[in-house]
């Protein structure tokens, strides 16, 4: 490691905010996945100017830069595959502007997702994208991953709520994209940078759209004997002309795991439950809730609970939200997958997932965004057993194949990162990937911003270990995906 790199970084952003001792660096070698890699230096800038200065230093020294928000990513995105500098946005945590009249906010990338909605609440507004990690994950990380959440079904992902960005390019230049007003002329670079996983630019400010809170919300919990019935009900609800705000599924394994902690009252022999939320004017929500109820009944639901008040609704969500924490008690480690299939293929693909897990002898719990066809099988294992992690990764790959074969994709919200880069060629041709690579070179990024991510490569990224637990621990008992 070049001492001159550290020195230059120190003079760019201050001695205090450049970490380089091995003990300090260790904290930044992992995110919430099962891989890790050690940086040479960690910088914690406070302003856009400091970010730009740090990037210019990196450029001069020819070292890569990997941005890092809260480190809750589930695809190895924030892991510095090729060392270099990790740029942490934790100190860029200010809401720069909250313009209630125009329903927008301008925030720094280190602002925690939930804090935006908290700040907006006084004005009857909120920030719609609600990744389950929203109590800790950063807006910068959300933008980089195009994060989704339970309410993506109705309201879309992060990209649908970002009006503009301030970015720093690999050359260290600060550029404004999009803006507070609509229809800025030119290519939609905002939309391109959202979801680019820190490989094109470092995001230093985000203009987000805020939505008015819906006047009424009703939550339903429908319990089914069989997973297949529940997954068929998902399509039936859509076919009935209802587009719920959220439509989540919890399977048997998950229900059994959470019951002792949450006392949700799940019947011990139930096969799956759907959690459905409808929002809008009172008149409309009650009609839609009724449509959902009768559709679920026709699809074979044996029990349907309805929550109207915030307390009742919170109770119905408790099992869903407590799932991950409870599952964490069942095995020393687990690996969360993220695949998407066309909604109508859900029943078959789910059966395929259970079959594959059975074959590998690896327990699986499914708790996921069923309305979007976005599966999150949680594979439970013990990473201390030699070879266990490798087998889990192998099974994960097989499940991803199932999704792709069904016409789906390899990630709906967690990103490609280093974890899935070699699956990219399953869904994109060489030409498709070449065009993406060209766009990357248009930014001058090449291998300097977050190398080893998104694009297929034969190079490894760090080593495999399990840090999922620590990520969960950080989010607390309320963690859920």
């Amino acid at each position, binding site marked *: 490691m070049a001492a001159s790199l550290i020195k230059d970084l120190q003079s760019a952003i201050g001695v205090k905010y450049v970490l380089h001792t091995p003990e300090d660096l260790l904290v930044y070698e992992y995110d919430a996945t099962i891989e890790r890699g050690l940086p040479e230096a960690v910088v914690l800038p406070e302003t856009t100017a400091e970010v730009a200065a740090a990037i210019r230093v990196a450029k001069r020294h020819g070292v890569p830069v990997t941005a890092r928000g809260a480190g809750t990513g589930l695809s190895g995105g924030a892991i510095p595959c090729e060392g270099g500098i990790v740029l942490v946005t934790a100190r860029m945590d200010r809401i720069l502007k909250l313009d209630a009249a125009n329903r927008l906010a301008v925030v720094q990338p280190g602002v925690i997702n939930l804090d935006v909605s908290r700040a907006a609440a006084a004005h009857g507004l909120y920030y719609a994208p609600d990744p389950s990690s929203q109590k800790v994950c950063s807006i910068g990380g959300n933008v980089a991953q195009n994060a989704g959440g339970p309410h993506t079904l109705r309201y879309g*992902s992060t990209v649908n709520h970002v009006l503009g960005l301030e970015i720093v390019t690999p050359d260290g230049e600060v550029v404004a994209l999009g803006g507070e007003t609509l229809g800025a002329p030119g*290519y939609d*670079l905002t939309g391109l940078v959202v979801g680019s996983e820190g490989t094109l630019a470092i995001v230093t400010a985000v203009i987000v759209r805020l939505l*008015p809170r*819906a006047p009424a919300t009703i939550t339903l919990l429908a319990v089914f004997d069989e997973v297949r019935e529940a997954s068929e009900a998902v399509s039936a609800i859509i076919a009935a002309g209802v587009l719920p705000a959220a439509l989540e599924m919890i399977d048997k394994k998950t229900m059994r795991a959470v019951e002792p902690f949450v006392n949700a009252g799940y019947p011990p022999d139930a096969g799956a439950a759907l959690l459905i939320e409808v929002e809008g004017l009172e008149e409309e929500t009650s009609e839609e809730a009724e449509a959902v109820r009768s559709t679920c009944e026709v699809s074979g639901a044996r029990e349907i609970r309805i929550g109207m008040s915030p307390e009742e609704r919170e109770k119905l969500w408790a099992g869903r939200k407590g799932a991950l924490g409870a599952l964490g008690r069942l095995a020393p480690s687990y690996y969360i997958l993220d695949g998407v299939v066309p909604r109508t293929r859900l029943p078959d693909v789910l059966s395929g997932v259970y079959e594959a897990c059975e074959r590998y002898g690896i327990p699986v719990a499914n708790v996921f965004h069923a309305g*979007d066809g976005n599966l999150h099988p949680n594979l439970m294992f013990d990473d201390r057993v030699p070879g266990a992690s490798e087998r889990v990764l192998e099974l994960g790959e097989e499940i991803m194949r199932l999704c792709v074969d069904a016409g789906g994709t390899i990630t709906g919200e967690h990103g490609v990162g280093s974890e899935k880069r070699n699956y990219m060629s399953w869904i994109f041709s060489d030409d498709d990937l070449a065009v993406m690579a060209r766009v990357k070179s*248009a930014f001058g990024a090449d291998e300097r911003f977050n190398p080893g991510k998104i694009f297929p490569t034969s190079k490894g990224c760090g080593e495999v270990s399990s840090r999922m637990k620590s990520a969960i621990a950080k989010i607390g008992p309320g963690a859920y995906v």
Partner: protein
Amino acid sequence: MVRQAALLTDLRSIAGAENLRPGSDEFAVDGVTPQAIVRPATVKAAAAVIGHANETRLAVIPIGGKQRGGPGNVPERYDIALDVTALSGVVEYEPDDLTITCGAGMTLAELRKTTAAAGQMVGFDPEIADEATVGGALAADLWGPSRVSLGGPRDFTIGLRVITGDGLITRAGGRVVKNVAGYDLCKLYVGSLGTLAVVTEATFKVQPLPKATRQIAFTAGSAAAACGIASDSLMRGLSLRSAVVTRAEERWRLDIALAGSEAAVERSARELASLAGDGEQETGDSGERPNERPIGVRIAALPSKLPALLEELPVGASFLAYPTLGVVRLRLRDEGELPSLMAMGAIVEDAPPEVKRGIDVFGPEPPALPLMRSIKAQLDPNSVLSPGRFVGRI
């Protein structure tokens, strides 16, 4: 003419004689007439045409519904009109998946009919003409007042198949509603006005058709009052599909479209009436769909600043304002007022060639222009596609 004859010979062997015609004014873009018109029957043939143009350094402009006028600078060069209307039809539509894939040459009329048959719709604004094609609507990033409830093309386009300026057939996005695999190049292509790639196929999110719709209109004493009713109804969560403010002499008028369940629309109408207070409820059409004026400009502002901007417009001005979006579309009789409007950030959406020739219709260069130029250089290295038409004459 020798050049034209040689070009026609080349194109004949690439795309077939039956798909080829000599250029004509029918395919003129902003007053520039092409030498040849090709209507390829397949994506492969379309790619071959572009590949040929790339090798011989000719300029190609994709053409859909030929709604003429519309956004874009006068092309710098224009040799081949690539008529994409043969690349049409539904490729895949599974209503329960809430997605549809169709050819770029499909008209919005066909798309609307196909989805309506299953009780669904794609979020293109109802105001957009039926004759527009999917490819043209995406290229121009067409949206209207319903963007407040339906989003714009960037929000509901989830997959595209395109041909780049050097003739590569490539895909972006996919066919599922949620997808973060790799860069979302759909965002780049939507609104790129045929300067990065030619769209051949698109996949959209669809949504259920509303069970009920209703149009109501109110008059108000000021722009602020008219805009205020719209934003209050949004904040109350009423079933707002779109809101448009216009002006007839001293009176301001607010046209609201409601969409939702019967009961929700009914209640929204009631609440709107009370929000409007003593503002009269209007019936009938405003008669203010100004189309004779040849120049169309768009100004975007923060919604809170829109009323003041509207009040400053001359009383005779002809415009449609979208209060919840902060956008006003003005129609002008001549270019007299253009310089002052463009100084306010207006962009010209539509104008006769003689007006366009003297200006950059997109106004001042955006700060990210250098990045945009390098993206253009990567996807269309020899400036084959619609050269000179875009921002900064890209």
